[in-house]
């Protein structure tokens, strides 16, 4: 058992996690659950004598955010206390799906219905007939995976085509280098920037994310700004001029979806100009010659033609990375959200491998883990060993080319799930547990197809904070969930793991924490797999099972925030491999630029680029109708994915979905700032308000995602809260990369035109929506 003494705690002026300040009780904790993002900033939660949430402040003693907070946490009381919250379990008759015909029921009745319905369907169709959909990675993964597996099903799904968010880069990295990699912003040290071993990155290459607004990989985005003040220079690879791009030595205004070509072009430039780290490559990389040969096909001129970035900028960026003593690849989900995501992220990472930016101060470091649950909690024990025949039924694992699904993750393959729902082959999926996820308005492409597939289910349970279009369209039972101020839990998640605890401060009313719901339902079905009387006992068990730690929730709360010991260059000391051998945790012990893992999975072993399709070079015949390159998913300060649209104090500052258009393009298309337009491609259209800005290439337009309009009528026949009009997923398709990972969420062709009277809506009435079938040849 690991020793809790190994964790370095941060002292507090007031040692107790809960104390009185004037009329308020202050509870120190972590913001890791809905509402809001998956960072888990340190917070001080202020409640009154009735345990009502008054406000949240940033915890200045917490090394992670050092007192800082974004607008969403500063307004979290408006979410927690919102009159729109779900406050009671609800039921609705199967035939009333899509109608606002909910009936409030007790938790006991809800649990009884869930138990009876799922039990009946599993008896009829097999245990695997149940699947679960998991929302974004807040406090969810261990509990929902365990619930899935303890109910005998191998199918826990993240509802994006090609699992194209984070998992893709993690899986790709583990296959090629034995570990995931994040930039070194001193986040592993409680002393942060004052730690003597740390130095600021000389170069931070921001690639496919806008970190000050977004929050991927456990990165508090403003750490980049902290490092700029300490001398870090920036490169930004982004189709838009962001604030960070404007402060960069080189802004590469990449054509969306061509990142792999850019990476290969940079590798070629670095090798041809002898800028790579010979010693690191000789000792610690495998397949350099083969990589060099693959990159040889991408000389600067050709790379520039593909990516639309001037040659001199590509060269300057490549040289800056290669010549720096400490360079960070600040990568984001854009590298996951392209169809061939695995070779794309492999190519981007290879730049930093061949220039030796690995495991050094201010470079790329492998995040240490306190809890290891990337395969979920209990997959091996509850599924793999117990029922190998069920393990073989995990959606997609039977496809030979999806070998990486069998490489230490337990996710079921989402695109395969959609096909299974449509065909009933190789077996019938009949019931769904949907937990803090909104596939129709947020994660899933082609909402018509997604809805028609999911509508076939015999039974759907949803667990959420608010009513959503997905719940209105699909659910039979709804369970209201608590927010992070209303529950106990751990924040031990993505990025560099530190131990934080989520501490209950405000009265949850009749809602329950997601963890408690999962425990209580799990217990009904399989008491042996859930032997704990309460969530605190369950947290002790996850510490043992996933962390090898003999400790309790209360002990962790006393320690929090707490840090693991860290040292650089662990490949030289055997600390990156479980067997203690030197090097990286791959078959060759080296970073595999030529990947034996990919080769063994029948995938190309070297990084490659494929033109995004449709796209200006791949489908020039579409350019007459759809001449603009569209990218999606631009982040906003005022909302997180599809959350927050019903919170007036946040919505007021960004009331509508937007599309950014260059002034020349706006003039050409006859649209002005503030106009409502349709963005349309060959698959569908969505409505947006035009923002005219010089910060985007005249050939691109960019829009934000996750939109629905809670103030509109919700019933299916009334348009699902305006979702059909404003969901940019109308333009997307279910189509994943060769390996089963990655999908083109961020690159397609489109046109824009003004919304005119009589053409203000996409009409998708219930019958049409529930029975939609994709046309052949469009998929």
């Amino acid at each position, binding site marked *: 058992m690991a020793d809790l003494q190994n964790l370095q705690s941060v002292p507090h002026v007031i040692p107790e996690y809960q104390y009185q300040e004037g009329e308020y009780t202050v509870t120190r904790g972590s913001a890791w659950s809905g509402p809001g993002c998956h960072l888990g900033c340190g917070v001080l939660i202020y409640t009154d004598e009735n345990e009502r949430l008054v*406000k949240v*402040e*940033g915890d*200045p003693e917490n090394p992670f955010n*050092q*007192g*800082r*907070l*974004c*607008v969403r946490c*500063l*307004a979290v*009381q408006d979410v927690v206390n919102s009159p729109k919250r779900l406050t009671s379990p609800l039921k609705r008759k199967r035939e009333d799906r899509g109608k606002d015909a909910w009936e409030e029921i007790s938790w006991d009745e809800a649990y009884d219905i869930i138990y009876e319905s799922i039990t009946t369907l599993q008896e009829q169709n097999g245990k695997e007939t149940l699947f679960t959909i998991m929302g974004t990675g807040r406090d969810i993964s261990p509990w929902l995976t365990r619930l899935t597996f303890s109910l005998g099903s191998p199918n826990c799904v993240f509802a994006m085509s090609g699992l194209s968010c984070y998992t893709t880069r993690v899986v790709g990295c583990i296959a090629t280098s034995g570990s995931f990699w994040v930039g070194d912003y001193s986040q592993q040290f409680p002393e942060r920037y004052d730690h003597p071993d740390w130095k600021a990155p000389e170069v931070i290459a921001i690639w496919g994310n806008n970190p*000050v*607004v977004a929050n991927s990989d456990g990165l508090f*985005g*403003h750490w980049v*700004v*902290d490092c*700029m*003040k300490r001398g870090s220079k920036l490169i930004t690879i982004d189709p838009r*001029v962001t*604030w960070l*791009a*404007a*402060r960069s030595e*080189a*802004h590469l*205004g990449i054509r969306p979806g061509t990142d792999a070509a850019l990476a290969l072009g940079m590798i070629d430039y670095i090798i041809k100009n002898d800028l790579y780290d010979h010693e690191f490559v000789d000792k610690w990389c495998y397949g350099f010659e083969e990589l060099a040969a693959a990159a040889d096909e991408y000389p600067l001129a050709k790379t520039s033609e593909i990516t*639309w*970035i*001037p040659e001199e*900028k590509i060269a300057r960026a490549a040289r800056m990375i290669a010549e720096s003593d400490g360079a960070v690849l600040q990568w984001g989900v854009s590298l996951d959200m392209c169809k061939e995501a695995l070779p794309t992220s492999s190519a981007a990472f290879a730049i930093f491998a061949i220039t030796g930016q690995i495991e050094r101060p201010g470079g790329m470091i492998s995040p240490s883990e306190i809890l290891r649950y990337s395969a979920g909690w209990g997959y091996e024990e509850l599924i793999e060993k117990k029922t190998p025949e069920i393990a073989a039924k995990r959606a997609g694992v039977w496809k030979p080319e999806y070998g990486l699904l069998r490489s230490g993750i337990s996710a079921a393959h989402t695109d395969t799930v959609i096909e299974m729902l449509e065909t009933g082959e190789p077996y019938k999926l009949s019931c769904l547990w949907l937990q803090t996820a909104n596939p129709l308005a947020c994660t899933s492409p082609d909402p018509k197809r997604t809805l028609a597939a999911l509508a076939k289910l015999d039974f759907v349970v949803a667990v959420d904070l608010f009513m959503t279009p997905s719940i209105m369209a699909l659910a039979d039972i709804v369970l209201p969930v608590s927010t992070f101020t209303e529950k106990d839990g751990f924040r031990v998640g993505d990025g560099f793991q530190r131990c934080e605890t989520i501490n209950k401060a405000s009265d949850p009313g009749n809602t329950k924490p997601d963890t408690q719901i999962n425990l209580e339902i799990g217990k009904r079905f399989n008491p042996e797999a859930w032997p704990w009387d309460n969530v605190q006992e369950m947290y002790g068990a996850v510490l043992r099972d996933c962390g090898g730690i003999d400790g309790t929730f209360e002990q962790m709360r006393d320690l929090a925030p707490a840090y693991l010991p860290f040292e650089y260059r662990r490949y030289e000391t055997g600390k990156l491999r479980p067997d203690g051998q030197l090097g990286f945790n791959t078959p060759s012990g080296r970073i595999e630029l030529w990947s034996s893992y990919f080769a063994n999975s029948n995938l190309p072993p070297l990084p490659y680029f494929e033109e995004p399709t449709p796209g200006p070079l791949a489908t020039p015949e579409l350019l007459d109708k759809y001449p603009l390159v569209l990218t999606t998913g631009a982040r906003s*300060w*005022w909302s997180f994915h599809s959350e927050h649209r019903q919170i*007036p*104090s946040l919505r*007021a*500052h960004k009331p509508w979905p937007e599309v950014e258009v*260059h002034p020349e393009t706006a003039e050409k298309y006859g649209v002005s700032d503030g106009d409502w337009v349709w963005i349309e491609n060959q698959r569908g259209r969505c409505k947006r308000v035009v923002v005219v*800005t*010089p*910060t985007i*290439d*005249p050939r691109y337009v960019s829009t934000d995602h996750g939109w629905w309009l809670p103030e509109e009528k919700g019933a299916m026949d009334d348009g699902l809260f305006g979702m059909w009009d404003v969901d940019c997923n109308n333009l997307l398709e279910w189509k994943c990369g060769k390996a089963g990972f990655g999908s083109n969420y961020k690159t397609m062709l489109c046109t824009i035109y003004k919304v005119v009277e009589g053409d203000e809506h996409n009409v998708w009435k219930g019958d049409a929506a529930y029975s939609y079938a994709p046309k052949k040849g469009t998929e």
Partner: protein
Amino acid sequence: MAKGLLIDYEFCTGCHSCEMACRKEHGLSDGEFGIKIAEFIWPKRAEGLDWQRTDDWQYTYIPVPLDECDLCAERTAAGKLPTCVHHCQAKVMQYGEIGELALALAEKPKQTLFRP
């Protein structure tokens, strides 16, 4: 001694945390501001350059304290920082005595000092 706010606008990212923190501290409604971000975004040379080669941007945010700003008198009396300074994500705001802030102002360009 008079107090003020020193703002390093070289590094203000325009995240609006100061505005929201202020609004919540002072009980302001959604359209009201005790501090507001001013925005200056354009290419410095607007003519005759293709977009991919336009590198020289004016891309600046400056938070400006307004009439509702009392420098969080209640908070500072209790030994806390003004809430905008406390929550500023880019850590570009300093609260202190005007004389001391003026010395810090002399040390670095792209700063501005407010006495609200």
